[in-house]
C-alpha cells in the first residue's frame, strides 16, 4: 500500500477533468433552483459591496470641498453631517444589503454540497450491493471506505467553501474592473499590468508548491510504510534485538519527511506575501500616478482613494483563486474515483424465476468450469449430485478449491461454463437474494455488526420474535452465555471490547443461521482458534443445525466428518476422490494418507 502511494506521486490530480466536471454538474442539476438563487444572491451581494469604496471616495471628496470652503468653527457637527450624510448612509445601506444577501447565499449553499454527497454515498452503498464479489477480492476495504469518506469529504468541502469563494471572487473582480474602467481607464491600465504579472507569478509559484506537496506526500508515504513495518514486526524486533537498527532506518526517513514537510509548508505560506508584494507594486504605481493626476486636476482625491481600495479588493481574490483551484482539483480527483467505483461492472441481472421451489435441497453441479481470473482455470470440469438431506464433507489442501465450490453454489461468482441447479432449477434463473435466503451459511470468520445480540441473531429474519430468537440461541448453545452478559440479548456488540470471545461469536452466527430455517446449509468449520471445550459445543450445535437438511461442510479436522454421507477430496480444483469415510480409507489415496498422517509420530 505504501509503495503504491509512492508510485502514484500525486493522487490529487484528476485524469479526466472535463468528463468528471460534466458529470458532477449533471448531478448538481437536481439542485438547480437552489444554485440559481445562490448565484443570484452572490451577484447582488458583490454588486452592493462594490458600492462601498465609491461611497467612501464620495465622502472624502465632499469633505475636502467643505473643509476648503469652510471657516466657521462653531458648527462643525452640522457641517460634517451635511457633507457626509449621503455617503455614510450609502455605506450603511450597501453593507446591510451585501451582508443580508451574502447570508442568503451561505444559507442556501449550506445544504448543496451535503445533499450532493449524500446522494453519491447512497449510490455507492447501493452499488456495493450489486458489485460482483470479485471486486472485493481485488480492492482493499480501506480503499472503498475512503471513497465514501475522504473523497466525498473533499467534494463537499469544495462545494461548501471553494466554489462559492471562486464565484464571488469572479464577480468581485468583474465589478471592480468595470468600476475602475469607468473611473479612469489610464489608471486601470497600470493595475492590469500589475495584475498580469502577479497572476503569472501565482501560477509559477503554485506549480513550485505542487512539486513540494508531491515530494512531501512521497516522503510521508515512505515513512508510513517503514513505521507500519516496524510496528507490525514489533515482537520480532524485540526478539532479535533490532530496536536500534529499526530506529535508525526510521530516523533517516523521518529526517527526509522533516525536510519535505518544511519545504511544502514554506511554499504554502510564502506564496501569500510574495504575491501580495507584487500586487502592492501595482498599488504603489497607482498611488503615485493617481497622485500626479490629482495634482493636474484630472481626478479627485476621493476617486484615487476608491481606486486604491479596488486594487486591494481584486488582488486578494486573484491569489485565493489559485488556491481554490488546487482544492478544486483534489475534489475532482476524488469525485473521479467515486465515479469509477459507480461505473464498475455489475453482477449479471437477476433471473426471472422464483426461489420458492427450493424445498428439498437437491443440488447438482454439471460440467462446471471456473477460474477466479480468466487466465487461470481452477475448476475444469466438475460434476456432482447431492440428494436431499445428505451431508457432504469437503476436505483437501488449502487453495485447492474447497471454498470455491461453496462460493459457486451461493452464486458469489459466475461460472465460466456448465451449470448448477437446486431442486431442478438453474441458480442463474432465480433472483440471487431469494435463492440465497434458502441457503444458510456459517462462515469461518464470524461477522457480526455493531448492534444488539438479538439484532445480530435476527439478521436473516428481521421480523423474528424474541421467543424465536431465544429458541435459536438455545439450539446453538449460546443462550447461557448471552444471559451472563450485563444486558443479555440487548447487549450491544461493538468492534473490540465486547467481552464476547471468538468462539462465542461463532456460536452466534450459528444461531443466526438456525433462525432462518434454510433448505441447504453451508458450514465453514473453523475451530482452530477456539479452545477445545467451545469447539465441542460448536460442533454439537452444528450437528443439530444440519439435521434434516442438505449440508455442505468444509472440514479442517477429519474427526468431525466421518459420518458424512459423502466426502469429497478437492485438490487443484478437482474432486480427486469421493465416497464415504470407509470407502476412501479402503481406496488408500490422498484421504487415507491425510487420515493416517494424524497419528504419525516423527
Amino acid at each position, binding site marked *: 500500500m505504501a509503495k503504491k502511494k509512492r508510485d502514484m506521486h500525486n493522487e490529487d490530480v484528476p485524469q479526466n477533468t472535463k468528463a468528471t466536471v460534466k458529470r458532477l454538474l449533471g448531478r448538481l442539476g437536481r439542485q438547480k433552483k437552489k444554485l440559481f438563487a445562490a448565484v443570484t444572491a452572490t451577484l447582488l451581494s458583490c454588486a452592493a459591496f462594490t458600492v462601498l469604496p465609491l461611497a467612501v471616495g464620495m465622502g472624502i471628496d465632499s469633505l475636502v470641498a467643505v473643509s476648503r470652503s469652510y471657516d466657521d468653527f462653531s458648527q462643525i457637527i452640522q457641517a460634517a453631517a451635511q457633507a457626509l450624510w449621503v*455617503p455614510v448612509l450609502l455605506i450603511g445601506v450597501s453593507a446591510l444589503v451585501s*451582508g443580508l444577501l451574502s447570508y442568503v447565499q451561505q444559507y442556501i449553499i449550506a445544504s448543496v454540497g451535503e445533499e450532493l454527497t449524500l446522494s453519491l454515498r447512497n449510490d455507492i452503498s447501493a452499488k456495493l450491493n450489486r458489485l460482483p464479489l470479485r471486486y472485493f477480492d481485488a480492492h482493499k476495504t480501506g480503499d472503498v471506505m475512503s471513497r465514501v469518506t475522504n473523497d466525498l469529504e473533499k467534494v463537499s468541502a469544495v462545494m461548501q467553501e471553494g466554489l462559492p469563494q471562486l464565484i464571488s471572487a469572479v464577480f468581485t473582480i468583474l465589478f471592480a474592473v468595470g468600476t475602475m474602467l469607468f473611473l479612469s481607464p489610464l489608471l486601470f491600465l497600470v493595475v492590469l499590468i500589475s495584475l498580469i504579472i502577479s497572476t503569472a507569478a501565482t501560477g509559477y509559484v503554485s506549480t513550485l508548491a505542487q512539486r513540494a506537496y508531491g515530494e512531501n506526500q512521497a516522503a510521508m508515504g515512505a515513512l508510513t510504510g517503514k513505521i507500519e513495518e516496524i510496528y507490525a514486526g514489533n515482537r*520480532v524486533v524485540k*526478539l532479535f534485538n533490532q530496536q536500534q537498527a529499526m530506529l535508525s532506518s526510521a530516523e533517516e526517513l523521518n529526517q527526509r519527511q522533516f525536510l519535505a514537510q518544511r519545504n511544502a509548508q514554506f511554499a504554502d505560506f510564502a506564496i501569500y*506575501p510574495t504575491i501580495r508584494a507584487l500586487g502592492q507594486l501595482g498599488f504603489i504605481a497607482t498611488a503615485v500616478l493617481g497622485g*500626479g493626476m490629482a495634482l493636474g486636476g484630472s481626478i479627485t482625491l476621493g476617486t484615487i482613494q476608491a481606486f486604491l481600495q479596488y486594487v486591494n479588493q481584486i488582488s486578494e481574490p486573484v491569489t485565493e483563486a489559485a488556491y481554490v483551484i488546487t482544492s478544486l482539483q483534489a475534489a475532482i480527483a476524488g469525485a473521479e474515483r467515486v465515479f469509477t467505483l459507480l461505473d464498475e461492472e455489475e453482477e449479471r441481472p437477476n433471473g426471472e424465476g422464483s426461489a420458492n421451489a427450493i424445498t428439498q435441497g437437491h443440488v447438482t453441479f454439471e460440467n462446471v468450469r471456473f477460474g477466479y481470473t480468466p487466465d487461470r482455470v481452477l475448476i475444469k470440469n466438475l460434476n456432482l449430485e447431492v440428494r436431499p438431506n445428505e451431508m457432504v464433507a469437503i476436505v483437501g489442501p488449502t487453495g485447492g478449491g474447497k471454498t470455491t465450490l461453496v462460493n459457486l453454489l451461493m452464486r458469489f461468482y459466475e461460472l465460466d461454463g456448465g451449470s448448477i441447479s437446486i431442486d431442478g432449477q438453474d441458480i442463474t434463473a432465480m433472483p440471487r437474494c431469494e435463492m440465497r435466503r434458502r441457503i444458510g451459511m456459517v462462515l469461518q470468520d464470524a461477522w457480526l455488526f455493531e448492534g444488539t445480540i438479538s439484532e445480530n441473531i435476527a439478521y436473516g429474519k428481521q421480523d423474528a420474535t424474541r421467543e424465536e430468537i431465544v429458541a435459536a440461541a438455545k439450539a446453538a448453545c449460546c443462550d447461557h452465555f448471552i444471559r451472563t452478559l450485563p444486558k443479555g440479548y440487548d447487549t450491544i456488540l461493538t468492534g473490540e471490547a465486547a467481552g464476547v470471545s471468538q468462539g462465542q461469536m461463532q456460536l452466534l452466527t450459528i444461531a443466526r443461521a438456525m433462525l432462518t430455517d434454510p433448505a441447504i446449509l453451508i458450514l465453514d468449520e473453523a475451530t482452530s482458534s477456539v479452545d477445545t471445550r467451545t469447539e465441542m459445543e460448536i460442533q454439537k450445535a452444528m450437528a443439530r443445525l444440519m439435521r434434516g437438511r442438505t449440508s455442505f461442510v468444509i472440514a479442517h479436522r477429519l474427526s468431525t466428518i466421518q459420518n458424512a454421507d459423502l466426502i469429497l477430496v478437492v485438490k487443484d480444483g478437482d474432486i480427486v476422490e469421493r465416497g464415504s469415510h470407509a470407502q476412501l480409507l479402503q481406496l488408500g489415496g490422498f484421504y487415507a494418507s491425510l487420515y493416517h498422517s*494424524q497419528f504419525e509420530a516423527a
Partner: protein
Amino acid sequence: MNYLTDFLKRHKGKTVLTVLLMLGQVVGTLLIPALVATMVDRGILLGDGNVILGTGVQMLVVTVLAAGISVWGSWATSDLAALFGREMRSMLLKKSQELSIQQFDTVGISSMITRTTSDITNLQRTMGMVLQMVVPAPIIVMVSILMTTMVSPVMAVIQLSFTAALLSLAAVILKKSHSLSSSIQTRLDRINQVVRESVTGVRVIRAFGNESYEEKRSGRAYESYADNMIRLNRLFAVVNPVVWLLMGALMAVILGVGGTLVLGASMAVGQITAVTEYSTLTMAYLIMAAAVLTTLPKAGACLRRLRELLDTKPAVLDASHCPRKDTFKTDAAVEFDQVTFSYHGAEEPVLCNLSFTLYPGQTTAVIGSTGSGKSTLADLLLRLHDIQSGRILLAGTDLCTLSQLELRARIGCVPQKAFLFSGTLAENLRMGRKDATDEELWEALRIAQAEDFVRRLSLGLKAPVAQGGTNFSGGQRQRLSIARALVKKADVFIFDDSFSALDVKTDAALRRALHQRVTKPAKLIIAQRVSTIMDADQILVLDKGQLVGKGTHQQLLECCCVYRDIADSQMQRKEA
C-alpha cells in the same frame, strides 16, 4: 510533561525569532496605509509632486522589506513546525521500542501507526498555521491600535470597540460549533463503521439476502451526518455577513466621526482612509486566526493521545544499577522456580506457581488448550513481561539481572506469526547474528527445510523480501522465520507453535533435522498437535495456568487426564 512548551523552550531562539519576524510583517503591512495618508495629506492636498514621488519610493522600500521579512517568517514558522513533528516522532518511535509487548498491544498497532504518522502530521500542520495566522493576530491588534491612537484617541476607541464586537462574535460561534463538531466526528465514525461492515461482511450480507436492509442502515448513517453538517454550515453562514456588516458600519462611523474631526482640524483627510485600513486589516487577521482556532480542538486531541503514550513508563526495564550477577552453578539451561504471572489488572493469574527445568540438548514440549497460558510461558522466558513472584534462571542467572539485549541474544525464538522485514533474505536471516557467514545461513536454511526453495530463487540469499514477507507463502515464511532463529548462537530455542503452518511431512523432517543437528541448546516447543510433540524428552501439560502434568508421552497418557483428553480429541486412540 508538556511536550509543546518543552519544545518551545528548547528552541527558544527560533521561537523568539519567529515572533519578531511576525511583528516585522505586521508593521510592514500597516505602514503602507500610513504612507498613503502622508501622500494624500502632504502631497496631493498640498499640491507637492515631490512628496508624492518620495512617498512612493518609501512605499516601495517598505513593500520589499516587508515581503522579505514575511518570506523569512514563513520559513521560520515552517521550520519550527516541521521540527516539532520530527522531534515528536523521534520520541514516539523510541518509546514504541521501549514499551513492553503488552503495553504496545493494549494501544494496538493501528492506533500506534495513526499516532506516529497522521496525528503528528496534523500537529505539524496546525502548529505551522497557528504560528503563521494566530500569532500575528494579537500583535496586529496592539500595533494598529497604537498607530490609530497616534492619529486620534477617539478613533482608537472606535476601533477598539469594533474589535471587541468581532471577538465576542467569534467566541459565540466557536463555542456553538464546538459541540456540533464533536457530534459530527461521532457520526463520521459511524459512517466508517457501517461501510467497513458492509465491505467485510459482504458474503454474509449476500448470503442472507439483506442488501436492502444494509442500504437502509448505511443510508441512516449518511443522513444523520449530512443533517449535522448542514446545521454546522448554517451556523457558520452567519459569520461572513456579520463581518461584512461590521466592516460597513465601521467605515460609516470612521467616515462620519473622522470627517467631523477633520473639520475640527484635529485630523487630516488622508488619515480617515488610513484608520479604515488599519481596522479592516486587523479584522481580516482576526478572522483568519479564528478560522485556525476551529481546528485546535482536533490538534489538541492528537497532542493528548501522544502525551498519553509518551508519558507511559515501560513495563519491562533493565536493572538500572549494575547488578551483582548471582550465578548459580547449574547444569540447567533454564529454570522456572515457582513462577506466577498475571496481566496487569486481571483477577486470575495466567500462570500459577510454575516450576520446571530445561536441560541442554533436551527437547521440552508444552501443550494445552487455548488460554492455558502456554504462549505466555515463552514470553516470560524472553522477559516480554515481568513476573510477579518466583524467578526464572537462564544458565543459573536471574533474568532480571541481565539486560534485555543480552538475554534475547542468548535465546532463539520462532514466534507464532512469521514476520519478515523488507530487504533481502540474507538481511532477514542475519538479524539473528550480524556476522554469520553465508555457509552458516545455508546450514540454518537446511535445518529449517527451506534450502530447496531458496536455492531455486534466482537471487538466492539476495532475493528480495517484500514488507511482511508477503512474496513468500505462509509455509515458506514460517520456515524462513525458523532459519532466522537458528542463525543465532543461542543457548535456548523456543518454537512457539511454529510448525502449525507446515504440512505433516515437512513438520516431521524439520523435527528430525533439529534433533540431529541442533544438539547442544535446550529446545522448547509449544504446540497444539500431539503428533508434533510425542517424541519430546519432557512434555509439560498446562491447564488454566497450572502445570497439570510433566513427563513423557507414554507417562502422561497413563497418568494425566487433561493430556489424555487432548490426545483423544485429536486422534481416535488406536485401540478404539
